């Protein structure tokens, strides 16, 4: 069973539908027992960083997830804001501490180049920096995925950067370490490529 973490941050149904589409049993949950029983965890999220962390803490999910991920080594996929809250800190509307699983900061897009709109919304190509199982067997030669965000993650060093994307500059659009992987783009909204990423994740045994 795959646990989709429900902490009141955005549209979790699409993630559920995508898992259903690839034939996997999924639960939308914030319950510790359910999460404990899951083979894989997905941490989605849309909204603001501060709200997300507050909601996680209120439900004790910060501790529950850290135990599952750090001690039990369970595979987890963060999506969009779910990626960002894995960072150490964010500057979105003040300064907020994240889960700290990656030595990374979340910053707002800032461009020297004129004409670049914020949010970064739409389809953009990703460039793999490492071979990661969740990017295996992508059927489409064009590796474009759907993004919608105004903030992006900046990793200290390039150790954790699994893929980059160019919007004004190259930013980390997928990060990975051990049993943790996260994407800034929305695989559940990225048609065939995205479904492949979801399928790869649920078959991943790190």
């Amino acid at each position, binding site marked *: 069973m795959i646990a989709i973490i429900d902490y009141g941050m*955005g*549209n979790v*149904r*699409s993630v559920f*539908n*995508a898992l*259903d*589409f690839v034939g996997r049993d999924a639960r939308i949950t914030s319950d510790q027992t359910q999460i404990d029983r899951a083979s894989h965890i997905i941490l989605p999220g*849309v*909204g*603001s960083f501060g709200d997300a962390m507050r909601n996680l803490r209120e439900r004790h999910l910060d501790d529950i997830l850290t135990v599952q991920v750090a001690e039990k080594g369970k595979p987890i996929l963060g999506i969009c804001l779910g990626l960002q809250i894995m960072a150490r800190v964010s500057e979105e509307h003040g300064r907020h501490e994240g889960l700290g699983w990656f030595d990374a900061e979340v910053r707002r897009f800032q461009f020297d180049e004129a*004409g670049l*709109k*914020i*949010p*970064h*919304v*739409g*389809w*953009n190509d990703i460039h793999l920096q490492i071979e990661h199982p969740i990017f295996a067997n992508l*059927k*489409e*030669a*064009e590796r*474009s995925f*759907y*993004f*919608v*965000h*105004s903030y992006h993650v900046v990793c200290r060093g390039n150790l954790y950067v699994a893929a980059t994307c*160019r*919007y004004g500059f190259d930013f980390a659009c997928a990060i990975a370490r051990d049993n943790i992987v996260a994407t800034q783009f*929305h695989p*559940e*909204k*990225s*048609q*065939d490529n*995205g*479904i492949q990423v979801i399928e790869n994740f649920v078959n991943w045994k790190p």
Partner: protein
Amino acid sequence: MVKKRIIPKFLLRDGRLAKGVRFLENMREAGNPVSTAKVYDSYGVDELIFLDIDATDASRMAVCSVIERVSEEIFMPFTAGGGVSQLQDVNALLRAGADKVSVNTAAVTKPGFVREAARAFGDQCIVVSVDYCRVEGGKHRVFINGGKTLTESDPIEWALKMQDNHCGEILLCSIDRDGTMSGYDLEMIARLAEKLEIPLIASSGAGSLKDCQQALDAGASAITISSMFFFTDHSPIKVRSYLFSQGLNVRASKSSRN
């Protein structure tokens, strides 16, 4: 770099597709939204917009059910709207599977609404639909209530104000051109795109491949197409191939992506 988007815009009435001219004239039945959405998914369009033109409670519930059914089978971004005037309307559409919600009338009649919705659900969730028409004296004015009610606002000033209120995108619709397939309002698109910091989705008037190119060249981040897809033989594949051949940054056609 981020690609220019091609977005079919679906108007719904009681859960069925409809398309007219200049918002209110010659409304024609245009099919089943779920099966049509699946066809467009197979064409590899970038996004879908569903707008309920009845904007009654019953009709909006029908839209939710359409979105629910579409999002079970299609994995791409959806914008939904029509009569959205309360936070719970936004929530219902997002829960049904929409990624973004379009607001039109309530942005005018409830001045704090866009800001409040953006704060509750995130800036990127809220799309303000700016419907405008040329009025006496050659000025342009914003209309609400599905093009039926004139307001005092200039569309550019209004769009910039909505940006200040934290909406994530502007959907710019020319009532004069809607359904006419006579080309987008390029002058308005260019003037607004230059001033906006958020993406502009240009709507109304697509009738030819050249029209699509011109709207994107004028500065739109995305274009919506309705009548041209429903009532001519232009498919999204044709539009995409043409734009690609003209050097625009669009996704390759689905058939050639493999």
